[in-house]
C-alpha cells in the first residue's frame, strides 16, 4: 500500500510538472522551477518574522507569494529590460535568495530557518502524513489530496485555454496581432507554475519537482514537435520515472526522490541516443 501511495504521489507530481514543463521548455523558461526553489527563502523568513512561528501553512503562503513575485520579476526584466530569459531568471532568483540569506543571518541568526528543513517535504513520508477531517478521521495522505487538486487545476486550465496558451507559446507576435495578450497568459501560466512548485515542494521536496519540470518535457521535446504528443509523452516519462525510481530506491534503500530523478535522467539519455541514431 505504501509503495502504491508513493508511486501515485510521484506520478501526480510528474504529470503536473510534465504538462507545465512542456510549456516552460518551449518558452525557454525551464529553469524557473529551480529559481523558485531558491527564491522562496525570503518568503519563508518574512512569514516567520511576521507570525513568529514555523507552522507550515504560513510558510506556504510566504513561499507562494514570493514564488509569484519571482515569476513576475523574471517576466518584467525580460519584457521591459529586454534581458534574455535565462539571464532574467538568474538575476531574479539569486537576488531573492541572497535577500533571504541576509534576512536569516540578520534577524533570525539563531533560529533554524532554511527551506530544506521548513518547506521541503519528503516523498518517503507521504503515506504516513495523513489529512484529517474535523472529527479526527483520516481522509487520506495529505500530499495525494493536495496534488490531485493541483493537477485538476492544471488540466482544467490547459483544456479550457489550450488555444490561447498554444498561440502565445508558439507565435507571440501573431497572438498580439489578433488581440491575445501574451503577458496575461504568461502571468497566468507562471502563477500556476508557482502554485504547483510550492505545493509540490511542500509535499515531496525540491529536487524531484525541479527535475520533473525539465527532464520529461525535454525528453519528449527530442522526440516530437506536436504539443499534444509532448504532453502525453512527458507525462508518460514522468510516470515511468516515478514507478521505476521507487523500486530502484527500494532495491538500494536510498532516497526515493533521488532515484526517481536518476531514472528521469536515464530516460532523457535513451531519448537522446534514439534521436541521434535516427538521423
Amino acid at each position, binding site marked *: 500500500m505504501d509503495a502504491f501511495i508513493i508511486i501515485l504521489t510521484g506520478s501526480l507530481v510528474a*504529470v503536473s510538472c510534465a504538462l507545465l514543463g512542456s510549456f516552460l521548455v518551449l518558452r525557454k523558461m525551464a529553469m524557473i522551477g529551480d529559481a523558485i526553489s531558491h527564491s522562496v527563502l525570503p518568503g519563508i523568513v518574512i512569514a516567520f518574522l511576521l507570525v513568529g512561528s514555523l507552522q507550515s501553512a504560513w510558510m506556504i503562503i510566504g513561499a507562494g507569494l514570493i514564488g509569484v513575485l519571482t515569476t513576475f520579476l523574471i517576466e518584467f526584466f525580460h519584457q521591459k529590460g529586454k534581458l534574455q530569459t535565462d539571464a532574467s531568471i538568474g538575476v531574479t532568483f539569486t537576488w531573492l535568495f541572497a535577500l533571504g540569506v541576509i534576512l536569516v543571518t540578520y534577524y*533570525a541568526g539563531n*533560529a533554524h*530557518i532554511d527551506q530544506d528543513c521548513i518547506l521541503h517535504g519528503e516523498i518517503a513520508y507521504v503515506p*504516513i502524513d495523513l489529512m484529517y477531517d474535523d472529527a479526527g478521521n*483520516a481522509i487520506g495522505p495529505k500530499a495525494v489530496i493536495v496534488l490531485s487538486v493541483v493537477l485538476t487545476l492544471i488540466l482544467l486550465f490547459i483544456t479550457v485555454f489550450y488555444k490561447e496558451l498554444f498561440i502565445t507559446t508558439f507565435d507571440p507576435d501573431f497572438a498580439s496581432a489578433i488581440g491575445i495578450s501574451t503577458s496575461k497568459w504568461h502571468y497566468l501560466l507562471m502563477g500556476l507554475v508557482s502554485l504547483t512548485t510550492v505545493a509540490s515542494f511542500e509535499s515531496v521536496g525540491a529536487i524531484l519537482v525541479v527535475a520533473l519540470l525539465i527532464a520529461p518535457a525535454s525528453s519528449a521535446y527530442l522526440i516530437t514537435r506536436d504539443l499534444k504528443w509532448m504532453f502525453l509523452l512527458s507525462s508518460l516519462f514522468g510516470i515511468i520515472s516515478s514507478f521505476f525510481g521507487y523500486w530502484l530506491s527500494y532495491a538500494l534503500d536510498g532516497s*526515493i526522490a533521488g532515484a526517481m530523478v536518476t531514472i528521469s535522467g536515464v530516460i532523457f539519455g535513451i531519448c537522446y541516443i534514439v534521436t541521434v541514431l535516427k538521423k
Partner: protein
Amino acid sequence: MIKNSIIHLILLGLIVSCSGPEKVDNDKLKVVATTGMLYDAVINIGKDKIEAEAIMGPGVDPHLYKATQGDLSKFNRADVIIYNGILLEGKMTEVLEKLGRQKPVYAVAESVPENMLLPFAGYQDAYDPHVWFDVSRWSLVVREIGNSLAAVDSINTEFYSKNTNSYLNQLDSLNEFVTSRIEEIPEERRILITAHDAFGYFGEAYGIRVEGLQGISTVADFGLKDIANIIDIIISNNIKAIFVETSVSEKSINAVVTGCREKGHNVSIGGYLYSDAMGEFGTEEGTYLGMFRKNVNTIVEALK
C-alpha cells in the same frame, strides 16, 4: 484522449506496484528512535524485551537528514516511536506528530521543562534542541523514555523502570566525571569554540563559555564579522585550541585558525567533537556515555 491515457497509465502503475514489502512479525516491542542518542537510551532501557531501530545512523546531521525508502517501513513497523522534538528533526516533526494519531509517538526531549530550555532570540517555537549535552537534562529525557516504554508495554513496566534507574545511575557517575574533569581546566581558559552552536547546554551546565561560528542551524552561513569576533575572543583570552565537529565541515573552523595565525596567535585544532551525531554503532563512541566521555577528554586535554 490524452487525459484518459494518462489516467490509465497511472492506474496501471498502481496495480503493478501494490506488492509492497512484507512485514516481519514477532512479539517483541518494536521501538524506532530518530537519533543515535535516543536509540542508545532506548536499548539500555528496553534491552532484550524490545527490538530497536535508529533512523539516523552515525555521523548524520539531523538538520539535513534525507529519508530513505526503508525509513517509512521502520516507522510503519514500529509499535512506538521516540523522537527528540524541539524541531531537531526539522520538517519530519510534522509527520511524526501526525503519526501520533495512529500509534504512540513521544517527543521525549520536550519533557524537559520549558524554563530549563535555552531560548533563542525570543521567538516562540525556537528553543535549542541539543539537550543531550547536559547530562542532568538528558536524565530527564531518559526517564521520559522509560515512562514511554512502560506506558506502551505495561507488562514489562518493572523491567523498564529497573533498567531506567540503573542507566540513570550511570548517567550520574558520568555527570560527576564530567564535572571533575572540567575542573582540571584553569577557570579563565574554560572557553569552548566550535563550528556550530550545539554545546549551549553543555556550557551552561558545566560552567564553560561557548562560542560558535554558525547559528543553531548547520546551514546558515557564518558572516565575516562572526569570524573576526571569534578571532578577537581567541586572541584576547589566549585560547590554545578550538574544535571541529564530526557532522559539520571543518572549513569554517580552518578559516579561524588561519585568521589567528595572520595576527600572530597560534591556535591549534583541539580535535573532533561529536555534536549532532555519535560514532559508529558498536564502538565506544557509538554510545552516549562513550561519546560524552570522549568529547570531555578531547576538550580537557586540549584546553588545560
